[in-house]
């Protein structure tokens, strides 16, 4: 029956096949195997051995209302992204259009996740590399103000998620059609005060990260992200690239292909059979003209000429996106009035829906087929880390050739920091690599 469904799906999306719906588990440990011979890379495998948890399988037969609570459990760091992609897809399948006040709430919710996830990544995972520390705790001894500022921003994002979803990890507020409850005016006023106070901190953060010495590399790769008509993309938009791709979210399967490699429990994905890049730098590259004016001004002061093809600019792009999210949250909270109803009532019907949103680490694509009771018949989830895997391998291959002169230890540090640029997921990104180099 499964095969029949899959065939039907392939027929529906056209000639190019999405091989199999696969959900990758990438948050745990991975390893990089490199083989070198005569100055050439003969073998390079980014191994991810996170145990599979089979989410797409047990989503089947669950009702539409349970889906956001289930998919949140895929990722502890970006549950909002999972919930929003799922809700958008289910709303589409049921033919539900959410009104502007609820769209604004969804955007506000997303701002919270970008801020907490980006702040965590910059301070706890990425920047210790650039300043030569093993972790944020030792970094804090020499840079106490910078680390405290980062943790304050992380707390700001978490606080917003707490108001809108009860807690930052696995929040409980979202439902297809909107939210179970909208923030009260008092809560919104309180959040607005905190966000206004934090705006100068977000500006300082951009300047601080902009002032770090980052390696200067160039990777010729396609930037893929969402792009919306009138805003910096989070929840909505078309899937675009800097090389001319411009498609509806529902057309993903006709252009992107996922496949399994023996060395990984995560799938690889290709765009027109080429590696591509998703995440904060590609998002910024494709949306420089969609930044809020104050962020655009700040961006102009950074020592980088955008668009960028340097993955090491990811930390700076994250800092810039924290600024975007703070500015946007202030705008949304200033005009906030409690909506009469926090969600649109859902009437289930049989159908297929697609959702794609900008998770902190890149586009997260969902497809659901639902029956007339609103139960899931089939689910497909393509997370950002599996999309970046092929590009991560290509990037590492280039990095090795550029750094052949380094000792194994230094080469390992270099490659580790290179992998972290992609923020593959938190647990793996701090000590992601067990590097084995075979030199002949």
């Amino acid at each position, binding site marked *: 029956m*499964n095969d029949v469904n899959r065939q039907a799906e392939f027929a529906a999306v056209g000639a190019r096949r999405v091989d*199999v719906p*696969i*959900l990758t*588990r990438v*948050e*745990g*440990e991975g390893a990089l195997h490199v083989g070198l011979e005569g100055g050439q890379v003969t073998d390079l495998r980014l191994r991810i051995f996170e*145990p*599979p*948890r*089979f*989410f*797409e*399988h*047990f989503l089947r037969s*669950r*009702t539409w209302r*349970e889906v956001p*609570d*289930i998919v949140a*459990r*895929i*990722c*502890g*760091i970006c*549950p909002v992204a999972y919930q929003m992609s799922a809700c958008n897809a289910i709303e589409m399948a049921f033919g539900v259009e959410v009104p502007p006040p609820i769209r604004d709430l969804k955007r506000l919710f997303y701002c919270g996740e970008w801020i*907490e996830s980006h702040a*965590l990544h910059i301070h*706890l995972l990425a920047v210790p590399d650039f300043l030569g520390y*093993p*972790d*944020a*705790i030792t970094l804090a001894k020499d840079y106490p103000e910078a680390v405290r500022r980062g*943790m*304050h921003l992380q707390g700001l994002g*978490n606080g917003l998620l707490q108001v809108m*979803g*009860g*807690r930052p*990890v*696995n929040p*409980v*507020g979202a*439902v297809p059609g909107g*939210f*179970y*409850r909208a923030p009260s005016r008092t809560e919104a006023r309180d959040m607005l005060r905190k966000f206004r106070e934090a705006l100068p901190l977000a500006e300082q953060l951009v300047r601080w990260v902009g002032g770090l010495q980052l390696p200067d590399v160039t990777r010729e790769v396609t930037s893929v992200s969402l792009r919306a008509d009138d805003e910096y993309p989070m929840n909505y938009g078309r899937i675009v690239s800097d090389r001319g791709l411009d498609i509806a979210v529902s057309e993903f399967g006709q252009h992107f292909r996922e*496949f*399994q490699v*023996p060395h990984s*429990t995560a799938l690889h994905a290709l765009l027109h059979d080429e590696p591509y890049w998703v995440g904060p730098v590609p998002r910024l590259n494709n949306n420089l003209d969609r930044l809020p004016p104050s962020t655009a001004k700040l961006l102009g002061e950074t020592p980088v000429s955008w668009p960028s093809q340097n993955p090491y600019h990811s930390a700076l792009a994250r800092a810039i996106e924290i600024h975007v999210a703070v500015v946007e949250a202030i705008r949304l909270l200033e005009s906030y009035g409690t909506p009469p109803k926090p969600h649109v009532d859902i009437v289930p019907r049989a159908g297929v829906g697609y959702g794609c949103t900008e998770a902190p680490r890149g586009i997260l694509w969902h497809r659901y087929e639902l029956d007339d009771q609103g139960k899931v018949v089939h689910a497909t989830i393509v997370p950002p880390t599996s999309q970046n895997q092929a590009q991560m391998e290509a990037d590492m291959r280039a990095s090795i050739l550029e750094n052949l002169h380094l000792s194994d230890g230094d080469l390992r540090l270099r490659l*580790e920091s290179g992998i972290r640029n992609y923020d593959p*997921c*938190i*647990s*793996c*990104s*701090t*000590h992601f690599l067990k590097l084995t180099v075979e030199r002949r």
Partner: protein
Amino acid sequence: MAKARIAVHKFSSCDGCQLQFLTLEEELLQLAERVEISYFVEATSNLGDGPYGSYDVSFVEGSVSTPDEVERIRKIRDNSRMVVAIGACATAGGIQALRNWGDLQSYKTSVYPQPEHIEALPTSTPFSEHIRVDAQLAGCPPNQGQLKYVLSSVLAGVQARIPRESICLQCKRDGNVCVLVAQEQPCMGPITKTGCGALCPHQERDCYSCFGPADTANIDAMGRRFMGTGMPPGGVVHRLRFIYNWAPQYREASQRWLDHAGGFRTLPPAVTVTPPSGVQP
């Protein structure tokens, strides 16, 4: 006195439980003053004495779902003074224990084109099925306050006493409008362990039991109440087979309700309390 050396390990999980440490924000720096964070791959590149070093307290997140993980947890047990299991996966197998109800091969082939490369056990199980665990903390994810309390208790050498009553009690004390009584939403609060802070009713929705069964939960009575909202017996099975589907209480009750839904047997009669003789009702 030397600082206690702590380790944090990840098994099959979403990472959310150890994230409860990393989202302590500034308190994380205070924690690092009080204990030596010796092995925590998510937080530091300093790997202490490695995964199987000798540590005072090892926090373990996730469930056991591969042959390799069975080996890992045994080695961690051998080298740790105390092992603390945190979260729903660690204490009850987690949401991925839903595969325990089906056939692993069909799961693999439905998700992976080449299932032979995928190594997985047929079940996802809690650590307590594999090793002796010194303390357990429920929740998907666990509450940060409870996590700090368990850590302090362990460091002080006293047993952490985590409340095991139903979340319903706190929900009432907080003055929430009951979503089950007022809105007929199938709220699991009456049979769910306290600890989250009654988040779901605060958000004006039904609890889905992400803290697992409360100690004295009368699950069949809950199921009957759900049927009163129009839910079929199969729906009750669905409610029980969620985040805590492999917790023994929910596991057994869900099987009873499944048999009932299939018409194989009737449920046990509702419990009536007979007053002891000599006492006038």
